């Protein structure tokens, strides 16, 4: 099952490393990363495969949100289908 991780907030050193480490801790494989600075804000979108994750989807979401809170960022993980449904016919 694929999911999309979005990370938004103030740019600083180590964001990608921290998010990747967190995902690796739960055995989540990263399929694609795109990252830019949009209007001064750090913006990262990752496509990940959670089918071999050691945690439930809810736990993974909480872990990422917790990491986000520590780093002053907004980090979400959502299943890919919601984006497909909204943006493709």
């Amino acid at each position: 099952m694929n999911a999309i991780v979005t990370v938004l907030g103030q740019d600083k050193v180590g964001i990608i490393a921290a998010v990747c480490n967190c995902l690796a801790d739960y055995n989540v494989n990263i399929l694609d990363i795109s990252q830019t600075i949009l209007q001064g804000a750090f913006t990262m979108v990752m496509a990940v495969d959670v089918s071999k994750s050691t945690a439930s989807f809810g736990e993974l979401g909480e872990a990422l949100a917790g990491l986000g809170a520590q780093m002053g960022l907004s980090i979400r993980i959502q299943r890919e289908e919601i984006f497909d449904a909204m943006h493709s016919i």
Partner: protein
Amino acid sequence: MLNQKEILSTVEMIAQQHLDIRTITLGLSLLSCCDPDPHRACEKIYEKICRCAEKLVKTGCDIEDEFGIPIVNKRISVTPMAMVAGASETEDYVPFALALDRAARTCGVNFIGGYSALVQKGMTKADELLIRSIPQALAQTELVCSSINVGSTRAGINMDAVALMGRIIKETAEATADQDGLGCAKLVVFCNAVEDNPFMAGAFHGAGEAEKVINVGVSGPGVVHHALQSVKGQPLDVAAETIKKTAFRVTRMGQLVAQEASRRLEIPFGIVDLSLAPTPAVGDSVARILEELGLEVCGTHGTTAALAMLNDAVKKGGVMASSSVGGLSGAFIPVSEDEGMIAAARRGTLCLDKLEAMTCVCSVGLDMIAVPGDTPAETIAAIIADEAAIGMVNNKTTAVRVLPAPGKTVGGTIEMGGLLGSAPVMPVHPESSAAFINRGGRIPAPLHSLKN
């Protein structure tokens, strides 16, 4: 392949523009619970609801977590209770409401709808007993919602029922006077009620429905408002196109959630209700959309036209996004639940008469409107009759949910909190409608040709 811009636009809609699924509603038939013994019937009702809705809230929360989309309410709608209770040998229907309330608490849902009767052409003994029990039923329960259908395009308007509902609304306000007449927020009077509506207070599971269905109501005034900001000053057909595209996206999400909920609960998918349902939160208002279209304040001249365009564009965009559209499907204009409507009513620009005109072109009716506590029952009945006439003639659903708050006068406010918001008390015409209402009888069904 998804692009970053699309992904971020979805995240922004959810995080900043209040995009949410307003409700997942489980429609459930209770016809199998009929029993001559009222205690046994109540037990069967409680048991069936708890068994069928056991996983509803958990499933809703799981979908919320995985898709990252808030699902604000999980609700249950049941067979109009007059049909079920009518089989029991009792004249006291309040225990049926208590059974619904108990079951709703056990399941953890936000509301349960269906303490209802359909009396558009005539009233059975059970219908009348149920209607007369409404004030106590709503005073003694917290989660039960009640709706009465008093008219239809096919049957006309049952004016005896309209007159009775005027009195019942007053009694309900008095029975819940300690909460500013909150009971009336859970009581709606319909013309042309729909059987698959997932929204409260008017949800019930019609007799023509399957045993169980999942209906989903979407929302998203904030998203439409935001999208319109990008076409400021452009012609209205451009605005209509923008609304359509936005409604399409919002509804696609509703369809996805509905299918997912249906699959996980192993309950057939019923409909997606394409509604723009506001909340009292800033940035989630239908009135502010109308103002974005160029009106200084919602309620001024041009409001009806703007609303007609908005309502139609929402339907056109949404209808292609879902395999099955139903329910009320349109823009709601509940005054107390819409921050912009509250502001317009406080300012005096938005009045009852303008709201009535607006209901001719949108879903659903005079909704969540506080009127003075001393408003006569006949005046409330006449407000219902006017609204029912609009629905009857125009072949659409209309409804009235007014709150005659005991002791409150024009200028006062009823605070209900949460999604119900706060309602400024609006003036009604002081001239009497009593002689008209006291005639009773029926307004015959309208002609279906010679339309003008």
